[in-house]
Structure formats: C-alpha cells, structure tokens
C-alpha cells in the first residue's frame, strides 16, 4: 500500500489526532512469519486515553513500538497507516520519524531500572532528551530537568537530578522516567505497562500522576497493560487485543459493564478488585495465548473459549469480523447477540 505523505491531500485524510489504519507488523523468522500485529485500526483524540489490554504476546507492546517507528526495517515488515497529527509515520523516512520521537510522541516503559542507562545520571538522561529537540544550553536544559522532576513529584529535584537510576526507589524511578518522557511536551504519550514493576500503593500514585499530567498537557495517552484494573482508572476507551488483532473495542463503561467478548469476560474474571468482596477465587483464563506464527484458522480465541461449540463449527473455520454492536462498541465474536447478553448477565457477572 503506498501512502501519500502530503498532509491533508490524502483521499481519506485523517480526522483524528492519531489514526491507525490496518496496521500490520510481521516478523519473518526461520520458523515462519510471526504476525504480531495483524490489521489493527483505531483512533485517538487529544486529551483522551486509550487503554490497550491483552495478555503478554497479544501484540500490545509491538503495537506501541510500531507507533514510535522503533522496529528495525531489516527484520520487521510494517504496513498500514499511522497518521499522527496529519503526518503519516509508516512511510516516513527514519530521520523524519526520529524527529517525531520524544518530541511529538513519547513513551514510558515497563521496567524503569532496565530502561534507563545505568551509567548516566537521571538528570543527564532528561537533559539529553530535551536538548535533542530544543536548541538550548546545558544550563537551561538542566533547569528544565529539575523542573520536570519537581512536577512528577520527586522531592528535592535539584539534588536528585545528579543521582543515578540505581539510587532511586522503584516509584521514583518511574516518576523520573515519566519526567523524561514528558520533557518535550509530547502530544502522544504511550505508557507500556507503566506500573507492572511497582507495588500496589505506588501503582496508584503513578496512575494519578499520569492522569494529572495528561490534564495539564492535554496529551493523548495510550495505556498498554494486561491489567484491566489499571485502565479502569484512566481510560476513556478500551481496546482488547488477542492474537495480534482487536477483539473488542468500546468505552470503559461498555467494557466494564457490558462486555460482549468471552475473552474480555475472562480478563474481567481474572482481575482482582479492591472495591468489593471476592465471592470466589480469581478465575484465570484456561490455556495459553496462541502462537503468532500459527494463528488458528477461525476465531483465534476458540481453543480457549468455553462457548465456541455454540457456533456450529464457525469458530474453527471462519474468522469473526469486528462489528459494531452499539455506537462506539465493536466486538469480533461469532456468538449471537442474545447468547452473549444471556451468558454475561446469567453466568459471568454474578461471579465477579
């Protein structure tokens, strides 16, 4: 697919701030073609938060690296379109994409210890990020770094700026990471499992911080996680990924209160909840995620789905398309609408 890179002149020009269309990221390997992301589309506006949820290996992180253009063109095949503020990213030159990274779009990584360079101070790493995109002196950049550290809630930022990552606690490190990501006021912030490595109380603080900063900067945020609890706090919309594809998309309200995909039910069932007593123990989803080399022919979730036999064999032969079931709520499932509602209200919800 060829892309016209001239802003606004594309026949189907983007309407949203971020518009991802039929994104495919494939890795040819000796064992076969790994289809990590296989036809993903979504939109996101400034000031809004999208949660992308799925188990490990569902293609979430590959998607986020794809958005930043971080895949090596030698070993990854990326196709589709990513429109960021009217500019297409997939077909752009590496240098163009590099200029976008850090300035227009930034990323917060999962493990702040391994994601920060161990041999440079936190301040140096923030200053470096800032000075790449802003032609300022070291002193100015340093003031900015201290300012950023202060804004993410690090006490005594003027002292901590000269500390090394290993001298920070886990939560502080993640704050520093966020300060680094936000140093150039990015319009799109991608947070990849930002709280997984942290303990529960710190998790809440970090999530609050991201929410506050989003309001302050009016950024678009993509929150990538395997934990529905995290997105529940933050997200406006939620995209559930399975086997490299979107299986359900809807508002947070839809996903939590009217989920229609059996996989979403599974995720909800495996989510610990603090706001109510647990009736039973957590219900994990049986089985393991599919190999992305040999995705099942029919519905990718069918081998693990308790209701696949209700579909007269279509689950094993035909891939369900993502269909709009309500305004802004899309589901890819062969089950009839009535069946889905019945199973949700009668079997699933009571157990949660």
């Amino acid at each position, binding site marked *: 697919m060829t892309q016209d890179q001239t802003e606004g002149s594309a026949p189907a020009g983007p309407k949203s701030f971020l518009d991802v269309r039929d994104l495919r990221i494939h890795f040819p390997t000796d064992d076969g073609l790994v289809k990590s992301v296989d036809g993903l589309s979504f939109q996101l506006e400034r000031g809004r938060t999208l949660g992308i949820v799925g188990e490990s290996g569902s293609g979430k992180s590959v998607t986020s*690296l794809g958005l*930043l253009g*971080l895949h090596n063109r030698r070993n990854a095949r990326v196709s589709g379109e990513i429109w960021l503020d009217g500019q297409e990213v997939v077909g752009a030159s590496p240098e163009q994409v*590099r*200029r*976008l*990274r*850090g*300035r227009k779009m*930034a*990323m917060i*990584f999962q*493990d702040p210890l*391994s*994601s*920060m*360079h*161990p*041999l440079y*101070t936190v301040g140096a790493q923030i200053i*470096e*990020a800032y000075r*790449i*995109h802003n032609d300022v002196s070291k002193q100015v950049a340093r003031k900015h770094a201290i300012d950023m550290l202060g804004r993410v809630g690090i006490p005594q930022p003027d002292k901590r700026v000269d500390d*090394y990552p*290993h001298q920070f606690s886990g939560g502080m490190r993640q704050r520093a990471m966020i300060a*680094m990501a936000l140093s150039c006021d990015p319009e799109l912030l991608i947070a990849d499992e930002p709280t997984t490595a942290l303990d529960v109380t710190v998790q809440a603080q970090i999530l609050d911080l991201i929410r506050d900063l989003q309001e302050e900067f009016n950024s678009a945020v993509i929150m990538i996680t395997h934990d529905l609890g995290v997105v529940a706090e933050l997200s406006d919309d939620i995209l559930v990924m399975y086997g490299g594809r979107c299986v359900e998309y809807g508002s947070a309200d839809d996903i939590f209160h009217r989920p229609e995909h059996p996989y979403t039910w599974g995720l909800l069932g495996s989510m610990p909840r603090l706001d109510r007593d647990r009736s039973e123990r957590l219900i994990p989803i049986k089985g393991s995620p599919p190999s992305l080399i040999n995705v099942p022919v029919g519905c990718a979730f069918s081998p693990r789905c308790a209701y696949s036999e209700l579909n007269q064999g279509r689950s094993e032969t035909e891939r369900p398309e993502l269909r709009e079931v309500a305004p802004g709520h899309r589901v890819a499932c062969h089950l009839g609408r009535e069946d889905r509602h019945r199973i949700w209200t009668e079997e699933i919800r009571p157990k949660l």
Partner: protein
Amino acid sequence: MVTFLIRRLIAAIALLIIVSMVTFAIFFLVPRLTGATTADLASRYVGKSAGPQAIHEVEVRLGLNRPVAIQYWNFVKGIIIGAHYDFGPSKVYCGPPCFGYSFINQTPVWPDLLDRAPVTLSLAAGAAIIWVIFGVTAGVISALKRGTAIDRVSMGIALAGVSLPIFFTGLLSLAIFRDNLNWFPNAGTYVGLTQNPLQWASALALPWVTLAFLQAALYARLTRAGMLETMGEDYIRTARAKGLPERTVIVRHALRSTLTPVLTIFGLDLGILLGGAVLTESTFSLPGLGKFAIDSINNNDLPRVLGVVMVGAFFIVLCNLVVDILYAVVDPRVRLS
C-alpha cells in the same frame, strides 16, 4: 575512598610478598625437598666443567648452603635496605631496592630490570593503542553489521589473529616488511625513544602491529559480543524512543556500556604485558622484560628470574588496582568500600 585505597594497597603488598615467597620456594626449597644438594644448586652457576672446589666457593658466595628461610630474609632485606656484594677487588653496595645479584652475568638485577622496562613499556603502550582502536572499531562495526560480509570478513580475520602464534606472524612480517620490502630496515634493533624517536617507532612498528593483531582480534570479538548484548538492552530502546540519532545511541549509550567490561580486561592484559611480552620480544629480539625473563630462565639465573617475576607481579597487581578504581569511576553502581 581513602580506606578503600589503603586496604587495596595492603592487599597488593601482601600478594607481592606471597608471590616472592612462592617463587623463592619453587627455586630454592623445592629442589632441596626433591633431594638436590646445595652443591647441585651451586653447580648451575659455574662454567662448562668445574671441580668441587669451585662449586663449593660459589655455594658459599651465593649463600646457597644456608637455610632457605635465611636466604629469603636476606632477599627481602636487600629490597628494603640494600645489600653488599663482592665484585672482586671491592665490596659493592647495592642500594634499595636491591633485587639480588646475577652471578651468571655479574651484574645487580635491579638496574638491568630498569634498563629493560622502557622497551617493554614502549612495546606494550604502542601495541595497546593500536589494538584498542582497531579491535573496538572492528567489533562495533561487526556487531552493527551483524551477518553481513563485513562482519564475516572481520571476524574471520579476528579468528586468524587469535589462532596464529606470534612467532609465526612475527617472523612472517619481518620476512615481508623488513627483508623483502625493506620498509623497516631496523626492525628488531631497539633504539630508545629519547635517543631517536623516528628510529624508535620504525623499530617497534612491526612488533606493535604483530602484538596488536593478536590482541585486536580478541578485543574485536569481545567488543562485538558486548555490543550485540548491549544493543538488546531496554535502555537502548529508551534512547531511541527519546529520538536520539543512531550515532549517539551507538556511541554514547551502547559503546559506553560495552567498554566498561572491556576496560577491565584491558587493564589485566596490559598488566600482564608490562611484566614482559615474552613471545613478541623473543621473536623480534627486543631486549625487554619478557626476553629478559626467558633468557634468565634458560640460564638458570635465579636472582634475575625472581626479580622479573616480582616486577611482573607488581604490574599485574598495579593494573588490577587501577582497573578497580577506574571501574568505580566509570560505573556508578560500583561502590568503593
């Protein structure tokens, strides 16, 4: 930091003392334990054929007939306060550090060691510069161009470098570049740096390259492996996500991490070489500490062997110490305590 230094210094001195004791024991105690008489030991110091009288004289002069512990004590005493030696017409005072007296060459050991050290230092320093530059560059390029022809060719050369012995590459380079092309006519005749810098460099060029070839090969492989590992680290991904140009990512972020372990090995290698690059010096007839060691061993010249072992151990210990301190400087995670 200060306590760290003091502790490491004490440990280093203790190590040197142990090395001297072990070396001393190997040469003076073990032969006795295996049944050699002190006259047997002394007979190594006399000429082609000598009568028992001459052997006995030497035995007494060298103190070989005394208990090993006392001989060792005298050796240590010589290092600290100096010793007196019988040069014939007069007793000569050998000032501290007096590392003994070579009765085979009729010279005190320490001035000879000092005389040889600049040669080894010149050889090691020059070769080190070459091998670090070429080895690290080749390793980085190989890692970045992994699987390409450049990678295969440079790793092939590296394999050759690691496998070919110096006495082969050395004699080959002499045959080609000195004897055939006549580029370095004075290769193999060392001239002091202060005496004639041009001659110095042209005499050492082939030894430098030969020694550096072997070491560069090791460093290329080491750097390549380190780079490949580092390039997969999360913080490299972060650096790219920040929008840094690829050059900066490689040089400032990846190479910086890769070179930290390389630095450690470099320190140890340099320490070992400063004690004498034995094969290179022998092949190119450079009168450095390595050749000194080999000649002394061949001549059974124990005081010299002991001296050169001590100097070698000293450099290794010193370089270890420097590496430890440097490591703490370059890697903030290491604490000096």
